[in-house]
């Protein structure tokens, strides 16, 4: 059975308004980035104790989302599941856009954009932050070739490039996990981070994919087989369970070992982190969606599936925050059995904010984040109009 693809019509007033709105939303972020380039990134909420903030959280989130999309496309590309072919193109296009968003997030976060050429001329084999941009760039290239092969209906080539893309995606996401896992910080250092990073990526990516598919088919009034959405929901539920398992192992280990117990408590039981972890990530982001999706009745209802997808995305956002920030707010244990007790004696002039610190994103960081999101939204909408990404219909072929 042949799946037909068509561009979206995109001639309605709403379409143009959407494109214009997205284009407009890009502007404030450009302004903020320019200000930071001129005056310095003190305009962000970052400090000497918290050198990585919102852009890194979102970068990590986008990279994860990109993996999930790619997996959906691989269901067709690698496993030959023809019923998922209708989503394959959108999935790869989204994977590509999410990765561009991730790279842009890093770019807006750099202190010296004018030295950026150095990253193309000097390479450090030992640096995860040097290896990863290389992986990202090649991944973007692979996605483009993959998309091209699908647009040209080169079926056999698609099979090959799909395998390459998925293998590369695993590298990209392990690498991103390693950015955090491979540094000597109590709440970062963990060999489990790369694989657990991939699982969270799969769940957030699948959830976003389901939301995008449902939204697109509804807006364009194209028929979508309900059973397909239900199956994707099941898949998401499985991913969520794996995420829970990894979270359990990692935190149980930290809590169990005496040397990391104090840091684990900071991560799990302080008011803000604890709320995000137990409330946001575990209950709202994992348990509720998993129960809803596995339940024989709610797991088949579109509104419930949408509900659990939104919760999953929220949960993974919490998880990304928890990967990046608590590892910095928690002070490194420089002197075992000693406490840095007083910083007031000489005044704050002579020391850092020692002890536990807090991070709040500034308005400029929010502008930048919105800008990046709007840009890929813009590219997505325009892409749908330019390329044959949307299928005319999606159903299970018997």
């Amino acid at each position, binding site marked *: 059975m042949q799946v037909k693809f068509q561009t979206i019509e995109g001639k309605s007033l709403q379409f143009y308004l959407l494109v214009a709105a997205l284009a407009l939303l890009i502007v404030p972020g450009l302004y903020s980035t320019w200000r930071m380039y001129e005056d*310095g990134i003190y305009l962000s909420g970052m400090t000497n104790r918290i050198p990585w903030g919102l852009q890194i959280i979102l970068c990590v989130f986008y990279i994860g989302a990109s993996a999930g999309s790619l997996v959906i496309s691989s269901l067709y590309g690698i496993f030959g599941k023809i019923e998922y072919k209708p989503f394959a193109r959108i999935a790869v296009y989204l994977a590509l856009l999410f990765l561009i968003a991730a790279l842009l997030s890093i770019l807006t976060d750099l202190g010296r954009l004018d030295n950026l050429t150095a990253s193309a001329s000097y*390479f450090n084999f030992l640096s995860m932050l*040097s290896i990863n941009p290389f992986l990202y760039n*090649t991944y973007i290239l692979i996605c483009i070739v993959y998309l*091209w092969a699908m647009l040209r209906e080169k079926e056999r080539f698609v099979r090959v490039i799909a395998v390459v893309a998925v293998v590369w995606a695993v590298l990209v996401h392990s690498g991103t996990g390693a950015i955090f896992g491979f540094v000597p910080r109590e709440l970062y250092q963990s060999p489990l981070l790369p694989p657990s990073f991939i699982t969270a990526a799969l769940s957030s990516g699948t959830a976003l994919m389901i939301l995008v598919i449902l939204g697109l088919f509804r807006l364009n009034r194209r028929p979508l087989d309900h059973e397909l959405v239900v199956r994707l929901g099941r898949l998401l539920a499985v991913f969520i369970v794996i995420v829970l398992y990894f979270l359990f192992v990692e935190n149980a280990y930290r809590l169990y070992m005496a040397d990391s117990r104090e840091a684990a408590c900071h991560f799990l039981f302080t008011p803000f982190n604890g709320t995000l972890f137990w409330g946001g990530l575990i209950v709202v982001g994992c348990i509720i969606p998993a129960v809803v999706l596995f339940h024989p009745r709610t797991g088949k209802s579109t509104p419930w599936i949408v509900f659990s997808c939104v919760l999953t995305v929220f949960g993974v956002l919490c998880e990304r925050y928890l990967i990046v920030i608590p590892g910095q707010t928690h002070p490194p244990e420089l002197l075992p059995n000693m406490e*840095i007790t007083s910083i007031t004696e000489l005044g704050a002039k002579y020391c850092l904010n020692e002890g536990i610190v807090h991070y709040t994103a500034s308005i400029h960081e929010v502008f930048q984040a919105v800008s990046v999101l709007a840009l890929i939204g813009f590219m997505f909408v325009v892409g749908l109009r330019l390329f044959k990404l949307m299928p005319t219909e999606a159903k299970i072929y018997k």
Partner: protein
Amino acid sequence: MDRREFLRKGGVLAAGTACAGALPWLPACSSTTTTSTPSGEEGSSSECKYGMVVDLPKCRPGCTACLDACRKENNVAYHGDPRWDVHLIRKVTVERTYPVQGPKKPMLLLCNQCDDPPCAQACPVQATYKRPDGIVVVDQHRCIGCRYCMIACPYDARSFNYKESEEWPNHDRAKSMHGVPESCTFCAHRLDRGEKPACVEACEKVGAKVLSVGNLNDPESRVSRLIRDNSVKALREDLGTKPKVFYIGL
């Protein structure tokens, strides 16, 4: 431009980007650190490796001579806001909490000039590197300001220039631009001239002699003698970073 052409051009552009990304794989090995010929502060030898000894019992709680000298010598940015103030050397108070409650003691924290520096390992563009004499420095003209070195440093020894400083006390030295990190370099520029680091000089001037910097490879240097004759500790030696700042009386 029709769609095919768009795709084709897009493809070419992307291929170009990826190639540019891959290019650095080739010359990576050849781009090594700059060389300098350290003269050494005392007992200079050809294989110089600098280290520091901090004699904490001699440090007076209220004294800030080394801190002020460092700020002045290196044009260290001070904005009056602890979020962004740059510190190459910090003074804190520490107190033993286990197994017995100890007295409050002053403590100096600075870059440990690790022999296996995680910051240099992390730097994506090799802007942070270890000089042949063991001093870890940042090339501010190559740094892209990603701050991964600060994430990687287990000692929180690096500060970032979130904004440019208004003051410029030492015109012999450039003012740090915003967007790059900084950490103590043992005043490498002074060592290269055969002078002592600013903090060491200031400490001697007030008659405390807490700080000494010298060649660890020279068995007769003051630092080598102090390390040999005293029980010294370095911070977080368990991490394997081989820090080269040693504390007496910690």
